[in-house]
C-alpha cells in the first residue's frame, strides 16, 4: 500500500518506534494520527512532523481503556478521514524490573493483556468494518521475539505478543477476500526507552535506531501486498535474507 495520501493511526506514538513510524509515514505523505498517554512527548512529535511539512495530529488516549476506543477512532476519522492503516505499537512490559511468572501478580498479567492484546482487539474491531466496506486497509501489530521464544522473565509480555500474532492471523483468515490485510511484525531490538526499561545493562551502541527500523517497516507496508495475509514478519530475518 503506497502510504502517500493515506490516513494512518499509530498507537504508542509519543516515543520510540511509534514516534519514528509517525515521522516516517508523514514524511512519505500520509496523514497521521498519533496516540499516546503522555501529552508533552506527543505534542513534541506532532510539532516536529508539522515543522517538517507533514500532517500529524496527537490524541491523548489509553488504548487499554474500553471507553477510549470509539472516541479515539471517531476523532481520528474526523481529523484524517477513514483509516487506511492502523499500527498497534502501544504496549507495556508490565512490572519492571521484569519478573518470572511465579512472581507476576494476576492483576499485572491482566493489565499487560488489556493494553497489548485487548486494546488492539477493540481498536481493530472499531476500524476494520470501514476497511472492509472500502475493500482496502492494513492493520499491523508490532510484535516481539518474546512472543515466540520463552525468555524467562518476559512471560506476561511474551504471552501478550504471541496472542497478538494469533489475533492478527485469525482476523486475516476471517477477512480473506475482503481486501483488508492484517500482519504482525517483530521489529527486533532497538534503542528505545522501553528496551532500556527491560534491559538496563544492554550495550546501546549495538542497538539500531527506531528511525532506521521505522523506515524499513514503512517499506514493508508499501510492499505488503506481496506478503501472505496474516503473516508474522521478522524484520531481522528479512534483513538477513535480503
Amino acid at each position, binding site marked *: 500500500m503506497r502510504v502517500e495520501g493515506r490516513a494512518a493511526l499509530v498507537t504508542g506514538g509519543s516515543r520510540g518506534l511509534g514516534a519514528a513510524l509517525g515521522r516516517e509515514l508523514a514524511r512519505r505523505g500520509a496523514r497521521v494520527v498519533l496516540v499516546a498517554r503522555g501529552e508533552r512527548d506527543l505534542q513534541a512529535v506532532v510539532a516536529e512532523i508539522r515543522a517538517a511539512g507533514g500532517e500529524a495530529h496527537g*490524541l491523548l488516549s489509553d488504548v487499554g481503556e474500553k471507553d477510549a476506543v470509539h*472516541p479515539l477512532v*471517531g*476523532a481520528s476519522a474526523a481529523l484524517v478521514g477513514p483509516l487506511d492503516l492502523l499500527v498497534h505499537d502501544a504496549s507495556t512490559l508490565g512490572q519492571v524490573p521484569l519478573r518470572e511468572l511465579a512472581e507476576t501478580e494476576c492483576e499485572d498479567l491482566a493489565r499487560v493483556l488489556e493494553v497489548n492484546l485487548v486494546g488492539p482487539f477493540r481498536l481493530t474491531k472499531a476500524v476494520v468494518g470501514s476497511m472492509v*466496506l*472500502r475493500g482496502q486497509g492494513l492493520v499491523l501489530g508490532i510484535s516481539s521475539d518474546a512472543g515466540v521464544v520463552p525468555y524467562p522473565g518476559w512471560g506476561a509480555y511474551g504471552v501478550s505478543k504471541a496472542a497478538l500474532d494469533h489475533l492478527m492471523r485469525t482476523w486475516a483468515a476471517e477477512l480473506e477476500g475482503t481486501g483488508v490485510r492484517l500482519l504482525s511484525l517483530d521489529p527486533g531490538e532497538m534503542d528505545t526507552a522501553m528496551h532500556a526499561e527491560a534491559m538496563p545493562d544492554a550495550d546501546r551502541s549495538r542497538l539500531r535506531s527506531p528511525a532506521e527500523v521505522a523506515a524499513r517497516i514503512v517499506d514493508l507496508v508499501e510492499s505488503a501486498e506481496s506478503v501472505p495475509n496474516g503473516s508474522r514478519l521478522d524484520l531481522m530475518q528479512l534483513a538477513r535474507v535480503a
Partner: protein
Amino acid sequence: MKPAVWPREKPGEARLLQVDPGAGTVSDRRLSDLPNLLRAPDLLVVNDAGTLPASLVAVTSRGRVEVRLAGPGETDRDWTAVLFGAGSWRQRTEDRPLPPALAPGEVIRFGDALCAEVRTVSPASPRLVELRFDREGASLWSALYRQGRPVQYSHLCGPLALWHIQTAFGSRPWAVEMPSAGRPLGIALLGQLRRRGVSIASVTHAAGLSSTGDPVLDAGLPLPERFEVPPATVEAVEVARRAAGRVVAVGTSVVRALEASAASDGRVRAGRGVATLRLAAGFVPRAVDGLVTGVHEPGTSHFDMLRAFAPEPLLQEARARAEAWGYLEHEFGDLSLILAA
C-alpha cells in the same frame, strides 16, 4: 407499535418486514433473509458516517442548557445546534422547557476545557442557533468526545454508550444521530451479500436530529444535511443500472444523499453537497429503487419518504401487520425492505 427500548444484544437478529410494492404484498422475514431477497447485480448502499456523541450539557450566564449538535457548518468549529432547557433525554423533547434566551455573542461553557460562542439565533425558534467553538482540530474533537453523550429519546430505558450508536462500518463522525438502518448490518452479512453477487457501496451522510421539541422546527425536519458520494459509488450505481440491478438504500439518509446528487436522468454525481430536499409522496426517486429502513409511523418525515416508494394503503397495511406481528419501532427496532421483487 412498541418501541425498542434498548439496543439488541445481537443486532443481526432484527426482523425484516418485506414490502413489495410491485406485488402489493407484505411478508414477515428475518434480516438474515436479506441475501435471498436481493440478487446479482443489485447494489446495496450504506451510510458510513460514524455518530458523534452530540448532546452536551453546558452552562451560560443565563443558566444551564443542553446543546444538541445538529450538523456541521463551514469549518469544524462551526455547528448548527438545538438548545434545550432543564431536563434530560428521559423526558419527551416536546415536554422540555425552552432554553434560556441567548443572544449572539453569548458564551456557552462545556466543562472546563471547551467553550462556544452563539453566532446567530434563528428567527424561527430560539432553540436553533449557530455556534462557533473556541478550538479546532484534535483539541476540539477530543473535547467533544469527552463532553458529549449520545443524543437519545425518552422511549429508551437507560443511558446509551458511544458504541451503541455506531454501525459496524462507520467512520467519519458526521452523524449526530445514528444512521440506524445500518446498525443491524454486520460485516458477516455484508460478506454473504457480496458472495451472492450483491455489490456494497457507501455514501457519507450527516444524519441530523429527528426531533427538536419545537413544532415549527420539527415540521421542517430534516434540516439541511452535508453528504459525500465517492466516485466508487457512482461507478457502482452505473454498473448496477447497466445490468438492470436494483439500487437499494440502507436508510433514509442514503436516499437523501443519492437523490440529492442525482441529475434528472438519474445519474448520480460524485462529490460533496448539502441535501435540502424533502422527499414525500409526489417525489419520484431517480437513483434509488428501494430501501431498507425502520418501521415508521405515519405523519413522520421518514414515513413521508416511504410514500415515494410504495402506495400509502400498502404502507398502512404493512404498519398494521408489523404491529400485529410484534415488530418493534424506532432506532433500535426492526427493519423493513421496501422494494419491488
